[in-house]
């Protein structure tokens, strides 16, 4: 049986799952919406994986990342639970060894990661402002009645430059409407939106930092050529989009899990595919211990509590 290593990136909106072999080649990958239900969507992905691997492979290591990494890590029996920054950068270096700056734009959040000699030296994360993330484009695409997948092609057909205020989605929207009334074409507007997003992203996350090539662009939004073009124009340099740009978090943490297993020579903690049949029951309750009234999350398997978190005082978390 061939050995594979599993990486799961679980966020609030999507789940990525990849299985890699010893050479970091992807044997299986799945990207789907998690709809705020990380447990159910992970189970589904796991069952798909089981079908696909079809008894020919053995899972020798598991890693999780993303905002749900703790929960899913516990459920799967992960060997490595890592933050998204480290995971993304690890995957990038698999494709572009000497990468210096990574642009990572997803639907809900965006990051910028700086590297030198294969190590992360700095990073920035955007979490509050939608103007620098994919949801900004999603929203405007809907307004314009253009499917987001076609955004890139439209942007490339633009023949006039139009500058759209991109500081904030609210202003962008009203600016876009007025530019439409001025008679700019859809293509021009779409191109303007792409540029606005890039400008906003660069000034928000890159403020005060030195950006150096080679540049790598990944995350869901990297599917959009319009944005890639806008980046290249703004930076005056080539921007590289790696092959598996949308599952980089999962890939990275799979690599980390593999390395961990090799370095420590341990056996994996993976609970096996049966996990998909175990009922993990998360419930929440309000603690009345003090006026913090924390919403505590409790996960049970067969009526036995296996994890708890969400308390400020540590009363519940520490009971494990």
């Amino acid at each position: 049986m061939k050995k594979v290593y599993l990486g799961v990136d679980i966020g609030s909106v999507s789940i990525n799952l990849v299985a890699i072999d010893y050479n970091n080649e992807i044997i299986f990958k799945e990207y789907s919406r998690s709809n705020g239900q990380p447990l159910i969507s992970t189970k589904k992905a796991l069952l798909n994986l089981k079908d696909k691997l079809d008894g020919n492979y053995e899972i020798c290591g598991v890693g999780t990342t993303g905002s749900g990494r703790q929960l899913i890590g516990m459920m799967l029996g992960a060997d490595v639970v890592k933050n998204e920054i480290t995971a993304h950068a690890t995957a990038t270096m698999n494709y572009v060894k000497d990468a210096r700056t990574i642009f990572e734009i997803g639907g809900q959040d965006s990051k910028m990661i700086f590297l030198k000699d294969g190590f992360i030296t700095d990073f920035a994360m955007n979490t509050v402002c939608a103007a620098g993330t994919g949801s900004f484009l999603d929203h405007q695409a809907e307004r314009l009645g253009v499917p987001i997948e076609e955004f890139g092609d439209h942007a490339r057909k633009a023949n006039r430059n139009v500058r759209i205020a991109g500081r904030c989605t609210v202003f962008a929207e009203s600016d876009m409407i007025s530019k439409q009334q001025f008679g700019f074409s859809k293509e021009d507007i779409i191109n303007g939106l792409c540029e606005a997003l890039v400008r906003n992203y660069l000034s928000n996350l890159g403020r005060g930092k030195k950006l150096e090539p080679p540049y790598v662009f990944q995350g869901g939004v990297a599917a959009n050529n319009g944005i890639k073009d806008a980046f290249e124009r703004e930076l005056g340099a080539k921007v590289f989009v790696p092959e598996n740009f949308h599952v980089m978090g999962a890939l990275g943490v799979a690599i980390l899990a593999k390395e961990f297993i090799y370095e420590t020579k341990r056996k994996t903690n993976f609970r096996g595919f049966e996990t998909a049949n175990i009922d993990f029951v998360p419930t929440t309750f309000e603690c009345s211990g003090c006026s913090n009234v924390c919403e505590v999350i409790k996960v049970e398997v067969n009526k036995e509590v296996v994890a708890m978190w969400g308390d400020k005082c540590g009363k519940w978390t520490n009971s494990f």
Partner: protein
Amino acid sequence: MKMTFPHMGNPIIYKKLIELLGHEIVCPNKPTKKTIELGVKHSPEFACFPMKAIMGTYIESLERGADVIVTSGGHGPCRAGFYGEVHKKILNNMGYDVEFIVFDSIHKDFKGFMKNMMKLVKHSSLLKVYKSFRLVYKITKDIDYFEKIIQTKRAYEINKGECSKALQEIISLYDKVQDHKELEKIKKTSEYIVDNIPIKYVEEDHKIRIGIVGEIYVVMESSVNMKIEEVLASLGCEVRRSHYLSDWAEHNIVPKIFRHDREEEILKKGEPYIEVQIGGHAKETLGHIVDYKEKGLDGIIHLLPFGCLPELVSQSIIPRMSREIDMPILSIALDEQSGLSNNLTRIEAFVDIIKTKKKRKIVS
């Protein structure tokens, strides 16, 4: 008259002082979610976060019967200097009949300071006042001393949560101190407590030390800073922070000739980056970063309240500074809706960077 004051870090010091001077006291509760909600509801939206949190604390204390609020003012062009006034206006509008005693720095306004002081010491003899101050000052020093030990040991504790518990125990011991003789005894007991916390062995090369700098309220008040010291400890980091009460007391109360003033030193170190005092703790923040670099710490976490102007200025200088002195620095803005899981990701990634940086140094 029942006195109260803001909650910042450890309330025992103010509590003791006011008690020793013979006043009745309503000790403020540690801010909770409810406190913050209350404060946010009754504060201007664009006020900075500490003002809102303290607003909530006041309301809760007044509800519990307090009618005099003792607090410190601010110096320089930072809004914090007006907060006493603003809090008072809002509370009056809400129907609370409350007196404010606002202490500005003794060095800037000696007369005003003394006038306030007279209100506080009305019933006490001068000797008693002097004795009370000395005792409380010593308690502050002791507690800070033990807290620093805890901040170091917590990174290596074997039983999760034991260090924090020990610190609580020590503080409640000091809460009972009435005179200098007791002080000695309690110091010994406390030494014993901290000495007996089991820790795991970590090689010197692998130790990670992080300094926390920034605006004083969010640096000191763990209930609004996601308990950052404990978070860092759980990632294996020793912690120091830029503000301790004893330093503050020394700088603001002890006459210049009697003190070895760390704060003056710190301000000097910040000078190359911000020339003038722009209020708040901006200049101190940068000074502390330089100081921590000199002391050999491995990284800095900079905490700023959302909407804090002085810290916004220091935040904009930090990237350049970080390059110049080769020090990893992470800025985190805090407000009533701070997303915990996002900040945890940041902190974890930041500690990862420091770890790899250290590892490489050891290898090469």
